[in-house]
């Protein structure tokens, strides 16, 4: 991993970071120029806070995507775990009050759904796109059944104040996200799970030829993604104070967007956690910045599309070559 090697792995990630990094910088500079208040510490905190949950989702998604699969179930998982946590800790509906145990238990649905996704892909060999899409529908349906017209309100104050609070001027959620990011980085670069994920994405057949237990690591990746989506759902509930079926509304597309504009390839084998982190930041800064510089809501969708394009153009223009395969 040391930089001194001309083609060392970290070095490689470094120049892969160069593109999205530049895009992010330009975006920030641009916004600051138009609206100086954008560059205040207060707003940095807000951006960090906004990026927290997407970042957690992106970390999980990245491993799945590195392997060449995809996880569309995260919105359903978030909903399921949101309802679960709200029903398990002190709340307006269930009469249960399991406290921190309840919070831990609330992650299980995520882990479970992720695990099932993995089994569907590896055992039944259902394409991940379809397996996880189905899982989304099922998880979401279950969440709606539980919600049943009266979403459980969370009355556990410590949980609420964690969700809304800050530590050393950084929002607690952002801190959790940073920990998850570090955890993801180590996983990717220093463990078999991470390296084999890259291998599987680089060539699943070849990985099997080399005798790697491919299926096991695929299941693991979906499980991690499910677990982190669950965490995101739980944290989201801590923030808005109830079990909410729409807690993950729109997160699936934006997470995938973040991952790919970071430079991680959907066909697998290329990219990584840090890229996804940058992608997430680009989207967070964009959403925040568009409000700051006062782009009218009617146009924001279009502007976002345009920025996504230019950002990825900037990021990959120099990589173009006749034999470069892009799917």
């Amino acid at each position, binding site marked *: 991993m040391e930089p001194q090697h001309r083609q060392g792995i970290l070095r490689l990630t470094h120049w892969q970071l160069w593109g999205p990094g530049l895009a992010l910088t330009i975006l920030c500079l641009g916004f600051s120029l138009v609206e100086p208040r954008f560059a205040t510490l207060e707003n940095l905190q807000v951006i960090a806070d906004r990026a927290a949950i997407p970042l957690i989702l992106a970390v999980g998604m990245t491993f799945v995507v590195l392997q060449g699969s995809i996880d569309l179930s995260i919105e359903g998982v978030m909903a399921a775990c949101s309802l679960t946590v709200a029903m398990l800790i002190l709340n307006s509906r269930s009469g249960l009050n399991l406290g921190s145990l309840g919070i831990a238990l609330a992650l299980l649905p995520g882990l479970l759904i992720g695990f099932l996704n993995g089994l569907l892909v590896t055992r039944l060999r259902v394409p*991940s796109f379809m397996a996880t899409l189905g899982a989304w529908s099922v998880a979401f349906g279950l969440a709606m059944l539980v919600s049943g017209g009266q979403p459980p309100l969370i009355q556990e104050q410590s949980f609420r104040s964690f969700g809304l609070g800050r530590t050393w001027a950084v929002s607690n959620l952002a801190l959790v996200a940073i920990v998850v990011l570090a955890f993801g980085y180590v996983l990717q670069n220093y463990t078999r799970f991470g390296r084999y994920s890259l291998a599987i994405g680089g060539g699943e057949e070849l990985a099997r030829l080399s005798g790697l237990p491919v299926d096991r690591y695929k299941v693991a990746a979906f499980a991690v993604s499910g677990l982190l989506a669950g965490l995101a759902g739980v944290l989201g509930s801590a923030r808005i104070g109830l079990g909410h079926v729409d807690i993950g509304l729109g997160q699936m*597309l934006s997470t995938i967007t973040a991952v790919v504009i970071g430079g991680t390839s959907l066909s697998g084998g290329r990219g990584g956690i840090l890229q996804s982190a940058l992608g997430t930041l680009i989207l967070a800064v964009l959403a925040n910045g568009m409000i700051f510089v006062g782009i009218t809501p009617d146009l924001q969708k279009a502007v976002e599309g345009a920025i996504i394009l230019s950002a990825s153009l900037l990021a990959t223009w120099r990589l173009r070559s006749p034999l470069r395969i892009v799917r």
Partner: protein
Amino acid sequence: MRRAIRPFFPLGVLLALVATVGTVEPSFLSLDNLSLLAGESSVILLLATGQTLVLLLGGIDLSMAALAALVSVWIALTLPTLGAGVVLGALALSSLLGAAQGFLHARAQLPSVIVTLAGLGLWSGIALAIAHTSVPISAGYSAIGWLDGNSFGVPHAFAFAATALGVLATLMHRLPLGRTVYAIGLNPKVAILSGIRVGRVKIFAFAVSGLFSGLAGMTMAARTYSGSPSIADSLLLPSITAVLIGGTAMTGGVGGFARTLIGVLTVTVLRIGIAAIGIDPAYEPIVYGVLAVAAVALNTDRSTLFAVK
């Protein structure tokens, strides 16, 4: 042997599904209900057909539904003043926008996901900006109204969509282009080294998916007598689901158009049939999810795909 019957799996699954719903709710099998089913499937069919071509190339087009919505808005806004001509104009426009996406994908070598995600934002953003909310077609409806009709129990929209699919399928089989699409989907590098202009093929494919988005938008406008910026949002995933249920692989080069037709009908039965057999609608998403996955599990030909992604 197993190979021989493989292609018929999707059809089997579809028939089994229809039969099941039919036994619970006999009226479901009535001719007018079946023809209704066909009619309801027409928009998804158009989206799925365009998507199939892109998936065969190994790409994906997430912008189709948004582009369809834009076209519906464009038609609704201009039809009253400019007359029937705008329909062709709208189709030309959507093909052009599709081609533009293909161009970025092929020439700037951006992943199709990124380009079409951006497209998704752009098209729906523009539709919103020019229409704000849904626009009723105040005049000139007849230019697209024929799509809403029904002859000999066959809904025109369905006949139209099925014909469009048929034409594309035939061309893909007879033209060299078809062969190159599969080659590119299976192994783009070899395709390039065989002197195939992969870039052009991609641009063409996205132009076609753009065209089919346009056809879908036109059909929706005809079905709802209006255009709306969010009219088709909810059809993107069902249309891709349909292609996969048909047995076309997301990894490219495996599958085809006839399969997509079956996939679309399956999805339509799932969307409407579940309600018909009268299970508590609150459970619908769960049943839908399970059945959709089951259908794909039965239909994907595992022998052709070494790696499942």
